[in-house]
């Protein structure tokens, strides 16, 4: 099958702790894939391994950009992963608080542009053109995300839900083909979650970017995902469609404990 992200026997040890134990995952293009599991199952560790924040103890990670060739990204630098087209958001929001909303998104364009110090000082034609393109593209993304009324606001002054959206906007600005969302709905109210659901679907359908997300909100996951992976104690315990996962006894056990009868 034609995957865009593939992890093969990925293991991550912190001293004696096996945070990930020979995990296999295949993300298909054009899909929304979810990764669920109880707290401490190793989901964020898995994301951190893919995006280069940790380098895995064992195993391999491959990406295949649409129309491109398969590429091994195991243990490469964080910014290289983003350059290859895999962007992410964080579980605890990590926007740049003292920069404006627009500038936050403009940072996302950094890896797709290349003017340097000399260009900044001389402000030659090429630099100015690039700068204009950065601003235009960033504004366009903010428009799609629905944050245009706040372009010049310092990011720290945004309401919580909007900060989460800004993080997604910023990630989209890097022109990814795969977007990793780490608990995007955490701390959101029902209305914000609904908006988020629509946004994620539009990212898949209109932006044509595949989405891989970690989420605890089961209603969101089940309603949204094309396929679901379940993790527990660093191991992958199930995979399938939301329908299959809901009925998987192993998953129910992981979430509710050993001794559940009936």
């Amino acid at each position, binding site marked *: 099958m034609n995957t865009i992200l593939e992890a093969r026997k990925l293991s991550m040890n912190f001293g004696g702790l096996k945070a990930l134990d020979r995990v296999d995952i295949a993300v298909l293009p054009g899909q929304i894939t979810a990764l669920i599991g109880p707290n401490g199952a190793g989901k964020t560790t898995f994301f951190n391994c893919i*995006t280069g*924040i940790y380098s895995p103890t064992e195993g391999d990670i491959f990406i295949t950009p649409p129309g491109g060739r398969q590429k091994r990204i195991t243990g490469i*630098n*964080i*910014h290289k992963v*983003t*350059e290859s087209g895999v*962007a*992410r958001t*964080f579980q605890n929001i*990590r*926007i*740049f*608080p*003292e*920069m*404006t909303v*627009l*500038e936050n998104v*403009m*940072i*996302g364009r*950094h*890896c*797709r*542009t290349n*003017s*340097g*110090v000399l*260009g*900044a*000082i001389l*402000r030659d034609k090429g*630099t*100015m053109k*690039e*700068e*204009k393109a*950065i*601003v*235009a593209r960033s*504004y366009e993304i903010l428009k799609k995300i629905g944050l*245009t009324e706040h*372009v*010049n*606001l*310092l990011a720290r*002054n945004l309401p919580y839900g909007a900060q989460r959206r800004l993080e997604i906007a*910023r*990630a989209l600005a*890097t022109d990814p083909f795969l977007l990793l969302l780490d608990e995007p709905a955490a701390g959101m109210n029902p209305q914000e979650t609904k908006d988020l659901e629509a946004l994620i679907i539009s990212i898949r359908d209109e932006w044509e970017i595949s989405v891989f997300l970690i989420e605890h909100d089961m209603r969101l996951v089940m309603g949204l995902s094309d396929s679901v992976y379940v993790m527990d104690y660093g191991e992958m315990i199930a995979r399938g469609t939301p329908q299959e996962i809901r009925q998987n006894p192993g998953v129910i056990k992981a979430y509710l404990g050993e001794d559940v009868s009936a």
Partner: protein
Amino acid sequence: MSTFNNTKYMEGMKQSVIVSTWFMFLTFPIMVIRVNTIENIIEWRWMNMFYVGAGSFILSFVWRYLSGRSISGRKENINAQGGHISFLQRLVSEKRLSLPALGVVAVIALFFPFISSIYQTNIMTTALMYVVLGLGLNIVVGQAGLLNLGYVAFYAAGAYTYALLYHHFGVGFWLALPLGALAATILGILLALPVLRLQGDYLAIVTLGFGEITRLVLENWNEFSFGPSGISGIPRPGLFGMEMGMHEATVYLYFLMILLCIVTIFVVNRLQDSRIGRALLALREDEIACQAMGINKTRVKLTAFALGSTWAGLVGVFFAAKTTFVNPASFTFLESAMILSIVVLGGTGSIIGIIIGALLLILLPEYLRAFSDYRMLLFGVIMVIMMIFRPQGIVEGVRRTYEFHAEENKKEI
């Protein structure tokens, strides 16, 4: 003033009396009692106790009054970024105000050396040197958020480059200027390489050590730097080989320094809102997120150190030319601390703030020579007060805003 009514006045009075009594008690042993060891008597300086009491009472009362006011009121003038806008920021951002202000500053700068003495021109030149140093350090500390306590090492690199090149090869000021900058830049990158992985306190300590090592090397490596006695007889900058007297040379150097200031402000200002400038800010804000945005952390850190130290190198060459003498004693940690104070006091990330900070911190002590005994005390008090009331500095850095119109793209760039 409705919120600061009579009961609050009384409350403030009461608190201030308590504070001043406490201060009189605390300072009693050092301020009131003096043992005269020659005549073996004890002097009781009761007047000092009165001064301390009255001073602390007034300060405490003013403090309470001001903080009471800042809690109430001041709701107007909220800018687009959701923060307050000060008069100085408006002065800079509104063309209607900034152009006349700029004109006044330009006229003063132009005529200053002709209406004041050599002594004052000299001090002003020094102050301008610190303006450039402050702006340079601001790139590293204010924008990239890398606390550098060894900035003086780059300053020394520039000064010694000129001194040594002149001493050995007779290289003149104008050739030494770019070479000094280059030497400082290379030194900056050399320092940045080992500290790439460090952050915060650790980075501060390593850079502090680096600054001290540089000074100690200059002090002890006699064959290279001529040790503590330094290098003297360094020529002042020339102007097409003209012979200049002491007075003309001072004025000339003053104008060169003005020129360097203008160039620095121009460059720093342009960098601030560029792709590189934004990358520096992102690095300061969140290192992991910055990398996750595809920014090469290593390259940005190296750029920050290189850009910052270049200015110190340039000023170093000016310093050597101005004093015509360099020795390691000019490049102590105190100097780094002074430049850092300028950045923090003026406002990290704000160009106008740093200019004001540099002028205040360098000029005030000179004009307050009468109180020279209490200079450091006063300095400390000002820093403490600033950090309590305006931790963001005299002028807060403001991010650039963009205007969009309906379906249009950006209007001004």
